């Protein structure tokens, strides 16, 4: 049976259909979950998609993290099941405390939409299990606030515990340690700024998103 991926929709989300299209094209079942309901149904994995939940007003993720759906996502994550935050989803996961650190405005103070090269640092996570360490993946970024920052201790922990999943080859936004994506200690909650769902169709220039989303779907299977 195919795993079912639930994609949370907040008012202001805008990449939910894209996430749905990408995981469906890779063989998963998928459905949208409304932020106002704490019922996640019987999904096997959760994606928090990109966009501007609640307008990103005040701070990205500041309002979204209080929604009923997020309370359930937190419980879902604590039970060890896979949760993926893409872009705004990553921001929401840090605000919700499921991932450490914070995402600040890009160093150049400009929104940036372009393909970047990512290096896989570890295959030990629900997002990278089907990749090879050292792989270079071309995946688009699309954000204003993607400049990852955290305390020195956190950075050390991330390093020591092998929790940095993806780094930028040519840091576009000022992220500390060139970090593009990380996971939690249990390795089932992952967040990244680049958009793997935008790199899943040959007409769109890259299919390097496949191994990442494949990993996630496979992790949702059990």
């Amino acid at each position: 049976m195919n795993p079912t991926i639930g994609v949370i929709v907040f008012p202001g989300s805008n990449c939910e259909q894209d996430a749905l299209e990408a995981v469906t094209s890779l063989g998963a079942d998928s459905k949208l979950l409304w932020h106002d309901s704490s019922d996640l149904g019987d999904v096997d994995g959760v994606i928090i998609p990109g966009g501007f939940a609640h307008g990103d007003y005040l701070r990205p993720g500041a309002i979204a993290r209080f929604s009923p759906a997020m309370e359930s996502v937190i419980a879902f994550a604590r039970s060890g099941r896979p949760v993926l935050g893409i872009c705004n989803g990553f921001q929401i996961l840090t605000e919700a405390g499921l991932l450490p650190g914070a995402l600040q405005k890009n160093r150049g103070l400009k929104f940036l939409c372009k393909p970047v090269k990512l290096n896989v640092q570890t295959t030990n996570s629900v997002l990278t299990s089907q990749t090879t360490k050292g792989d270079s993946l071309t995946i688009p970024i699309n954000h204003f606030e993607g400049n990852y920052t955290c305390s020195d201790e956190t950075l050390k922990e991330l390093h020591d515990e092998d929790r940095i999943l993806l780094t930028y080859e040519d840091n576009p936004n000022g992220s500390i340690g060139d970090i593009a994506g990380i996971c939690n200690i249990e390795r089932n909650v992952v967040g990244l700024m680049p958009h793997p769902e935008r790199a899943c169709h040959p007409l769109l220039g890259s299919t390097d998103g496949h191994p990442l989303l494949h990993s996630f779907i496979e992790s949702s299977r059990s």
Partner: protein
Amino acid sequence: MEFEATVEVQLKEGIADPQGSTIENATPKLGFNGIENVRVGKSIRFTITAEDEATAKETIQELCEKFLTNPVIENAIIHLQGAE
């Protein structure tokens, strides 16, 4: 009682401030000299109705911690002005 509150949200010391540096770098080019250590934050003004000043302050403090700031990177300075 109604109070006027201003919450100034600032980046913690040590956290890089790209907005501040941009302003700092631009000023000499525009002919303004002697401007340094620029830090950009948010100022959030609102009115709050509470029993007394202490309660108001407490509520705001909690609001700051839970919502208005991200404690990983931000501090808040709270100003409260008596009922009017």
